């Protein structure tokens, strides 16, 4: 990741901008149905550790004096899912999502045909090339 940031640093003009946009492991996905939050999903350990590794890589390159941070933050977006079967598929096939938080699947299974919304958070950081 540090290599990738160094490559990006070489590719951007002096005074230019590097933006890092990725899933936010500090804010795990939430499961919404009928407008109510009823549970959540949790991420695979490797996804969380990769995210932290990326955080450290960015901090290192900033520490090297190659970038200065302009600002960072996070935001949520909604992913509509047709029903519980579709959400099961989504969880099973995801490289990031490991499973349902305790009790979430049982609640969804009481009415499996209803549409579901997964709210996911994205984190971003905006940096200026020195």
């Amino acid at each position, binding site marked *: *990741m540090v*290599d*990738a*940031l160094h*490559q*990006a640093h070489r*590719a*951007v*003009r002096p005074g*230019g*901008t*590097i*933006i*890092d*946009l*990725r*899933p936010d492991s500090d804010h795990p996905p939430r499961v919404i149905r009928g407008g109510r939050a009823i549970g959540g999903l949790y991420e695979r350990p490797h*996804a969380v550790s*990769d*995210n932290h*590794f*990326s955080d450290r*890589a*960015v901090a290192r390159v900033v520490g090297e004096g190659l970038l200065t941070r302009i600002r960072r*933050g996070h*935001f949520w*977006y909604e*992913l509509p899912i047709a029903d519980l079967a*579709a959400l099961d*598929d*989504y969880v099973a*096939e*995801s*490289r*990031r*999502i490991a499973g349902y938080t305790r009790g979430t699947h049982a609640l969804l299974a009481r009415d499996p045909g209803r549409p579901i919304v997964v709210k*996911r958070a*994205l984190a*971003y950081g*905006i940096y200026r090339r020195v």
Partner: protein
Amino acid sequence: MAEPVGDIGRIGCPSAVRPADDIELRKMRAARYFAGKDVLDIGTGDGRLASLIARTARSVVGLDPDPAGIRAARRRGVPNARFRVSTAQDLGVGKERFDTVLFSWSL
């Protein structure tokens, strides 16, 4: 890249689990970093975000290690966007320089 092709969704396309519209651009309030700029999008996937950025950018180059994603991106036919198979560790952009580099779910 930690996860070169992003988070594969139920239809097998990385972008299937990404936002459907331009919410990233709106929420980051980053328009100024793209408008009139030469932009490099690393981890472009099927070019969804790159094609949105290209509406205001001078040019966009989208890179992704997934050939199927790059084929889909090219099919969008965005005139000021180019797409090619590449990784963040080996950008392959030569001496080309950009005003903005975006890591799209790829760092």
